[in-house]
């Protein structure tokens, strides 16, 4: 094929591109059109058991695994009047510093209870350093209809093993009553 003059060959590229599929993604207007890949590493989430107790046991293995030292955990005892997780120990303080996190996912691999997983949320930009240190409240997964928020007792007659074996499916009426009583007390105290 005879060579086109250089100027025309340039314009030809421009002209032919007009008929190709557009790669530009209109973020943020059309972001729903382009969901992340299923295994995308986004913001972390601290999961709950189906009755709302936290899965995190405060073992700090995530912090141990973290190559960027982005995670801070402090464990504590589940006391008789305040239970946050099945078993003896829960994560009292849980912070992830998203200025440091490199989203490698090693923390997820380290977590022995599947308490820590990653979501597809990638919109983490903010305008101050403080706001990018996520506390436990920011990271805890949402409460579904079947859950009531910790602290509350375990399902009567079950052990932590039953929780890990998936035998608990929803909050019992006792747990709901306990949490309702507590929230009433709190709102009373606020008033």
């Amino acid at each position, binding site marked *: 094929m005879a060579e086109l003059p250089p100027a025309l060959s340039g314009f030809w590229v421009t002209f032919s591109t007009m008929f190709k599929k557009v790669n530009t993604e209109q973020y943020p207007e059309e972001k729903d059109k382009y969901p992340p890949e299923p295994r995308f590493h986004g913001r972390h989430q601290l999961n709950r058991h189906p009755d709302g107790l936290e899965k995190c*046991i405060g073992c700090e293995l995530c912090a*141990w695994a973290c190559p960027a030292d982005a995670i801070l955990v*402090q464990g504590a005892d589940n006391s008789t009047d305040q239970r946050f997780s099945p078993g*003896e120990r829960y994560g009292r303080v849980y912070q992830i510093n998203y200025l440091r996190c490199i989203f490698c996912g090693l923390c997820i691999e380290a977590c022995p209870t599947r308490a820590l997983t990653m979501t597809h949320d990638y919109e983490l930009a903010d305008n101050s350093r403080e706001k990018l240190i996520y506390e436990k409240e920011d990271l805890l997964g949402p409460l579904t209809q079947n859950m009531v928020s910790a602290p509350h007792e375990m399902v009567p007659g079950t052990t932590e093993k039953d929780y890990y074996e998936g035998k608990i499916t929803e909050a019992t009426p006792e747990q709901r009553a306990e949490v309702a009583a507590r929230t009433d007390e709190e709102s009373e105290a606020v008033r």
Partner: protein
Amino acid sequence: MSTTSHEATGSDTPTVKMITGTIDGTDVTVPEGTMIIRAAELMGVEVPRFCDHPLLDPVAACRACLVEVEGMPKPQPSCAVPLGDGMTVQTQLTSEVADTAQKGVMEFLLINHPLDCPVCDKGGECPLQNQAMSVGRPESRFTGQKREFPKPINVSSEILLDRERCVSCARCTRFAEQIAGDPFIALLERGAQQQVGTGEEPFDSYFSGNTIQICPVGALTSEEYRFRSRPFDLVSVPTTCEHCASGCSMRTDYRHENVMRRQSGDDPEVNEEWNCDKGRFAFPYLQLERLATPLVRENGQLRRASWPEALRIAADGLAAARGRTSVLTGGRLTMEDAYAYARFARVGLGTDDIDLRARAASDEETDFLSGEVAGSCGPVYRELESAPAVLLAALEPEEESPIIYLRLRKAARAGTKVFSLGPFASQGLEKMAGSLVECVPGDLATQLDQLDDETAAALSQPGAVILLGERAATEPGAFAAMSRLVQRTGAEWAWVPRRAGERGAIDAGCLPGLLPGGRPLTDETARQEIASLWGIDPDELPATAGRSLAATVAQIHADAKAASEAGEEEEFSPELAALLVAGVEPDDIPNADQFLTALDSVPFLVSLETRPSEVTARADVVLPVAVVTEKSGAFVTWEGRRRPFGTVMPQPTSFTDAVVLALLSDYMDLATPPREVDDLRTELGNLGAWQGSRVSPADVPAGSAQQPGSGEAVLASWRYLLDLGTMQEGEPHLAGTRKPAVVRISAATAAANGVEAGSRVRVSTDTGAITLPVELTEMAENVVWLPLNSPDSQVLVSLGALPGDTVRLERGDV
């Protein structure tokens, strides 16, 4: 204790027979009786082990250390088989048999071990975990149900036991039996159900924390540290314990500027690998409410002030009272800080009124400490261990210096005879298999003089030691009597204070009439040496010995009386116009009320403190100082051994006492004294030992016990290790292991006073009364013992009486 060096003691040590064996094809020569595992260590071969501990008797419980020994049919536990002459041993490195055996044992140990490493406090520093990672199988072949026990049980209020995790190595039970002598825990049941447990009584041992540290798995944990952090969070700093004069080497682990735990350090010359529960668990006080800024008094109220303002007020007040100020340093300072006080008192304040003793003291004791103790060095722990006989006078080692107790118990197990002069044979004495020489408080000097021939003969053996406790200060003539006994028997001796800083402060010159290094204030050469060191004229040093704490309090009261008599018109100038007080706890001082009213009435009071106290509440200026984790320095043990330690957590905003005193000197327009620890240490070091004449203790006649009338008894008392001390605050679990307060009297005394077993006894004076359950004890007649500073039994405060005083005794209300 003497100022001259000891004669060499090594000449008569028996020669050790050496034997040679072969381990992994290499010859190794060791003393006869060395276990194979130790010999292997010496040549750099590590055999796995869980139950083996060099300070405990071998038991071969865990079987992790199996090795192949030529000529023996089965693998042998290397921790319990001594290397023999010509023996050929093959460890896991060269022997398939040993390797297989060890792996088999590892698999067995893991069968019942729960997979709760993520929540286990030991995770990350666990020998079992490490070994499972390095030699264990990647996958378990065990498919059955693991042994389960209910989760942790409290063996005491501080110590928790997870029986599932236990590998039955018996380290804790052997420690309790062999080292501490408190066999409250034992291995119960057999086979797979074997477990550590307590009998009826909880594991209330003063040394229980050591079992946590030596547990090779996470079976034993403490309430205090449980789940609070993981090993990789912690910054570990070696340090020295500030609780008593034993001088334990310790390790402080902190995270985010909070001390998380403290563990015993390893110092074979001092605490070996042990420490007491007070040293281990009593640290939360460091993080309780602290003084954050200087405070000054304005219109009768303390208010926050800046450093320059507070220093200006303090410096002006102290400068105005030059020569009329008293300094009370308490017994908790580091040697360097104490030296800074000793120097500041003489140079900055122009006074010799300085006393380190916030406790019962006497002039006799002052002379003794100045003349005999200051700057000297005496028998050391190792000599206690090899002593043929040890006499304890006014000293209860388990309660007052626990590491002495551990050493003496170790010595007693090897044959040392322990004698104790006291009203009854305490638990500690019984655990040391010691003999009691019955002695009523007040009678110590007479008893020392009239010691029976058998005891005296035992003390006359070479290497025998006499340990005199700080409670001897309330025994008239005890120091002179001890000197006579030392002359009579030729025994070594040492004076054992209770607080960590007392010995260092004596060496640094924090006593009236005593300059640093044991130099008498009245000695011309000593004055010149000190004056040239401090850059002043010898004439500027105070001319005569100053006041002790008791004399200071008396003088302030006399001043107050004189001022009220003088009326308002006259210009009254008190003899004592200011007080400079460091860490003094008024409740430790006899007649605490009088001390507090003296603090109220002294015209100007400056307090250097770490936390708000009864002293700071009365001070005109409060200057906050650093706690022990924020500074470096050295404590001096009862032996005279310096125990330097570094800063654990540097805090740029907190100053040591020495720095604050240097700042005060600046504000008083004086030459700046050294303020950094290194400089203070160098200055003290440059001073060197004092070779000249020393204060010669007066020959005080031996006192004898008071004769109580009917319904009365002589008071005997000492502190429990765990009591109401302010440095034990903030740790309720430790407080739960305190011994209960009881009154001890003999059955005859009880009968004479209408007291029955199981009833309560009311002990009273004109000041007040203490009522406690009675425990009938085999002890001297007409003597009543109760703990000095325990809950419901604060003798100094409630009774206003000292041991040796007469108190009333009657049946208490039920």
